[in-house]
């Protein structure tokens, strides 16, 4: 999997960092989780920009690599001798993925604190933030689209693997919410940028936090171990958490609306939204035959929202699910405001209905309820219990939301359309990646559209 590992580093790659071969990057890039076109061979790789961050041994080189028109950020460490641990991150020869090197990553904190500029890269603390340096760095594991490093128990630095020029939604929305005094986001502390491209974003680290997905699935596990008890009766009942989560999401929406404004759009904008749902459905229907039996009812459900005279749009999270929320010791926090990963940048920044976030979260509760049953022989008892859990916690989430902002269920047709649109997307995703799981969104579509 990693060609660099097999080579004797000293034989083929004698000294200079610049000798990092394009061939090595070509082999290494597709194996990275954050690589966009996973599993596809790369035809064209070029190092489009290269600068030195740290000289010496170990040294740190900052690269922008263009692979088949996608730009990737790669931090390359170079050492005369790779430790056993870093050998696993070798790119080729003496070069390796520097995000796995706690020594080099730890020194980045000094650059932020000093406000240094290295080879055109501007390392800056946020105004009013005095960073504590000398903290031990540790890379954190599995991530889909970026790489992150935690400093002590204090900061987390996210390095965008596919940085794009122009405004960075993640940074901008975090700043806006922090200015509004939001308790539902982690405070921004520093950024590193190249001209108008944000390369990395550091925030306060939420040490004792656990992902919403992990807390929700712990509750489901507790429920399914009982079988004879209803969701409201088991000790692991999640409704209280779900309600608090709903309130937190509503508070973020209210803060974003207050700071960045809202807009009333008319029936034509609603129609555009509905047309796009139909368009996405067309594409998925072509790939997934199981969806065809639901086509008519799906289209009817989309069109049910068409009659609306308009809707309110604003900045929202854009990709909200239980993996994007953290339970901390003081409540729920939302992370990663980059927006929908699949959408083009211009679409990500467009104001949208807050109901999209609500729909994303409702779908996520459904997934949490059913994930243990994916791939199992259908068992009516377990399915019934799981559905109870989903209903109970979806309702609790909406209750919590309604206590802070408007009740999302008041706009049932639109919320239903968003939820089904999301489910259609999930059908396509699961069909491609996890066929055993395709039953989860299909069951939801069947239930929401009232199909047998």
């Amino acid at each position, binding site marked *: 999997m990693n060609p660099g590992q097999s080579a004797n580093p000293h034989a083929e790659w004698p000294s200079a960092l610049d000798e990092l071969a394009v061939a090595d990057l070509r082999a290494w890039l597709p194996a990275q989780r954050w690589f966009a076109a996973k599993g596809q061979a790369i035809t064209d790789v070029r190092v489009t920009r290269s600068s030195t961050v740290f000289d010496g041994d170990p040294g740190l080189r900052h690269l922008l690599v263009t692979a088949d028109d996608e730009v990737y950020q790669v931090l390359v460490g170079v050492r005369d001798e790779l430790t*056993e*641990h870093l050998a696993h991150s070798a790119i080729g020869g003496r070069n390796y993925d520097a995000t796995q090197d*706690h020594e080099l990553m730890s020194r980045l904190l000094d650059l932020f604190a000093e406000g240094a500029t290295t080879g055109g890269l501007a390392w800056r603390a946020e105004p009013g933030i005095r960073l504590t340096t000398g903290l*031990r760095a*540790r890379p954190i*594991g599995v991530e889909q689209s970026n790489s992150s490093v*935690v400093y002590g*128990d204090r900061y987390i630095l996210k390095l965008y693997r596919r940085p794009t020029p122009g405004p960075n939604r993640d940074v901008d929305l975090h700043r806006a919410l922090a200015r509004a005094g939001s308790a539902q986001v982690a405070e921004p502390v520093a950024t590193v940028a190249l001209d108008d491209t944000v390369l990395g974003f550091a925030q306060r680290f*939420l*040490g*004792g*936090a*656990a*992902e919403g997905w*992990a*807390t929700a699935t*712990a*509750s489901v*596990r*507790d429920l399914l*171990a009982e079988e004879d008890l209803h969701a409201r*009766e088991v*000790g*692991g*009942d999640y409704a*209280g958490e779900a309600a608090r989560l709903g309130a937190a999401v509503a508070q973020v929406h209210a803060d974003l609306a207050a700071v960045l404004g809202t807009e009333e759009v008319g029936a034509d904008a609603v129609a555009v939204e509905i047309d796009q749902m139909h368009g996405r459905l067309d594409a998925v229907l072509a790939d997934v035959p199981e969806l065809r039996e639901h086509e008519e009812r799906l289209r009817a459900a989309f069109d049910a929202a068409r009659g609306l005279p308009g809707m309110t749009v604003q900045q929202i999270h854009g990709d909200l699910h239980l993996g994007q929320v953290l*339970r901390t*010791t*003081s409540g729920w926090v939302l992370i990663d405001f980059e927006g929908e990963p699949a959408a083009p940048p211009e679409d990500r920044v467009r104001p949208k209905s807050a109901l999209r976030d609500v729909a994303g979260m409702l779908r996520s509760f459904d997934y949490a309820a059913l994930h243990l049953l994916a791939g199992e022989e259908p068992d009516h008892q377990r399915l019934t219990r799981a559905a109870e859990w989903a209903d109970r916690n979806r309702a609790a989430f909406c209750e919590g939301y309604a206590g802070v902002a408007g009740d999302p269920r008041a706009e049932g047709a639109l919320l239903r359309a968003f939820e089904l649109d999301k489910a259609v997307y999930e059908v396509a995703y699961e069909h491609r990646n996890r066929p055993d799981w395709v039953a989860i969104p299909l069951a939801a579509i069947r239930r929401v559209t009232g199909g047998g």
Partner: protein
Amino acid sequence: MTVQDTSTAPDAALGLAGIPHTGEAVTADGHLTEPQAGDFHHARSAPPDPRWYKSAVFYEVLVRAFNDSDGNGTGDLRGLADKLDYLQWLGIDCLWLPPFYASPLRDGGYDISDFRAVLPEFGTVDDFGYLLDQAHKRGIRVITDLVLNHTSDAHPWFQESRQHPDGPYGDYYVWSDTDDRYADARIIFVDTETSNWTYDPVRGQFYWHRFFSHQPDLNYENPDVQEAMLDVLRFWLDIGIDGFRLDAVPYLFEEEGTNCENLPRTHEFLKRCRKVVDDEYPGRVLLAEANQWPADVVEYFGDAGIGGDECHMAFHFPLMPRIFMAVRRESRFPISEILAQTPSIPAGAQWGIFLRNHDELTLEMVTDEERDYMYAEYAKDPRMKANIGIRRRLAPLLDNDRNQQELFTALLLSLPGSPVLYYGDEIGMGDNIWLGDRDAVRTPMQWSPDRNAGFSRCDPGRLYLPTIADPVYGFQAVNVESQMNNTSSLLHWTRRMLQVRTEHPAFGLGDFVELGSSNPSVLAYLRTHGDDVVICVNNLSRFPQPVELHLSEHDGCVPVELTGGVRFPAIGELPYLLTLPGHGFYWFQITRPTTGEGESQ
């Protein structure tokens, strides 16, 4: 002795004829004579150690319930003294005795009718001195409850006060012509009381009481009351007691326009109490009972700048129900949250923490939602509820699940604070919810499978409360004797854990830092005191769980499991992976590899 009409003699209600007591005589100027410490034997001192309470393990024992030496069906001080060898073997550092003073027993002895006499069925002041002496001989300390706020209405002070408004005791209590003062003070026992004022037909005035109407509040505005109460402290401290749990401390003073709780002058008086201890009896402790949020309770430690100048200890009330919630929810957050909200305390202060005690499992420090949850989970029968709480013992609360009992005890012994065990929980005793009030958890200690559980030689019908006799928790099945003979028993396990705790100062004196992890069902934390670094990892779920801990700060160190001494793989740069069985826990000491050890394998 001044001749008095016996029905109005100030000591008439005491029932202490023939025993030294307050009000045996009245001086010419109207003062009651009171027993003096010099009249009694003084116990030898406990070994000197000014910070002993910070790492001590406390054991709450009801004198009535532990051991009956004279066969009258009620436990007594001599009986308790006879069981000190057992408590020493178990590894207890300090006994906490709920009140054993003379009392009409209308509030479990918290209605004290003479601060300077012992309830006759428990013994005498000299019996208490003997208990203290024997305890100190074994390195065990003893503290008891003292109610500063009020007395029983049978106390000779109150009898004098109501009969002689102009006498020396006339202002010992809070009297008023009307019942409308201090209207902002809440009524605590809403089930039984409708007002904080009660009319006394003898004096023709209302008297103030924050608790029951038979417990008039002392008037701390009166300097004589302050002096009298300080002398009560001195009386027992002279005999040799190691400290007091001060009951109901927030209520000593009243002030119009306030809720009459936590007033500055109340703190001033506590500072006076502390000064008496520090100046005259160093090494003794004051423990505040204030059932409030930790952020408010810290006030009772006093000035942090000088290490604290009020109480040495205070109970941490909200932690306990949250341990139950966390395990039932399989989520660390109920515990993490309350610890994150707990402010730091002065250098000389310590929390007291507990799982169960003689009261109900109080649910005052939880939200309504959480209270409903606790009732639904832990009080499935309405008889299990009492006031705002649940009246059950630890073992039945946990469905007698040994794994959970061990997990709960491990949490109690390793979270920040000095643990307070409740008598009988070390053997997993049960409760009897068919007994009235909170008696469910106050049944006789189960020593053996013999008659009356070995607690008393009396006729079983004469016992103050029946022994537990059900097939699961009954004394034939659950008793000290059989568990002493079985090294895998809960009793032996508890003893072993107490030994381990004693060996590591980090548990009592160490800093507490929670170690987050991605698994919400695992609660992990670091306790650090100098070189002593202990990691505690607790699986709150009934299912096995993995957890990755970020310990790279301790790169190269070796975790050594504390109960068995097994060396675990060295900590490296990567997250440290552990797997835990359902409701399992680990305690590790983190040791620096010495030369020649710990190189990479």
